[in-house]
């Protein structure tokens, strides 16, 4: 996955997780409370909402000119992003994957289809 420069993002903000939850009307405590994340067996750090990760991955393919031409996204959420994580996204044509910066296993993969610009 190397046909474009790697898109980097981070550190993931725990405070922003609450803002994402407000936008999503999502009360899942694993995004808001370290104790809840730990109680759910996810470790001692808050878990980033999935759509927040997908937004970062989208940004790896959006260049300002093509944003309005995005027509389809199909995403699979494979792992959790935690507060403090540094992320990198790599694209390969119409596909892209999101990784924790020092790991090889993707946390999120997606395919993208663009149409004609409006």
């Amino acid at each position: 996955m190397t046909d474009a420069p790697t898109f980097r993002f981070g550190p993931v903000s725990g405070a922003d997780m609450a803002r994402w939850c407000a936008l999503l009307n999502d009360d899942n405590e694993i995004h808001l409370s370290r104790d809840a994340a730990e109680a759910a067996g996810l470790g001692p750090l808050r878990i980033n909402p999935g759509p927040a990760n997908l937004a970062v991955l989208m940004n790896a393919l959006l260049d300002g000119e093509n944003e309005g031409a995005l027509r389809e996204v199909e995403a699979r959420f494979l792992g959790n992003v935690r507060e403090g994580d540094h992320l990198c996204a790599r694209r390969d044509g119409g596909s892209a994957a999101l990784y924790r910066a020092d790991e090889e296993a993707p946390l999120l993969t997606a395919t993208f289809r663009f149409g004609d610009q409006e």
Partner: protein
Amino acid sequence: MPAPAAHPPIPQSRYRLTRQADDAVRRMSGALARQGAGAHPIFAFLGALGGLPQPIKELSESLGLDFAAGPVLAGCRITLHAPLQIDRDYTVEAKVAGLERRPSRAYGAADHLHLAVALTEGGTPASEIALHIVFPAPEAQ
């Protein structure tokens, strides 16, 4: 265990896509600055979930799902018929497209919820999302 067949309809609702929300999303995700009135495409997701008439927790529990067990977003498919725009009101039409319990290597058993949510404007489709959310079902282990 949730009932396998017909689910109560989800009332139609409205979602206001504000420039403030778009500004926040762009800042929080490292996106480029907005050009014109075009909202970030992740609003197909945010408008779908954030625009439901009730929080996803309440909707899930109304279906008999154990939200406290820690649901996991497994996947989604987004279709954008046209770019979403800031300072617009969208109609939110949601339905339960599927709900089934399956064996799970991770949890022993899990309930798979499939939600379909469309945003329309003046009757014209703007975006659609198919969401797949997995709920651990520990009582079935």
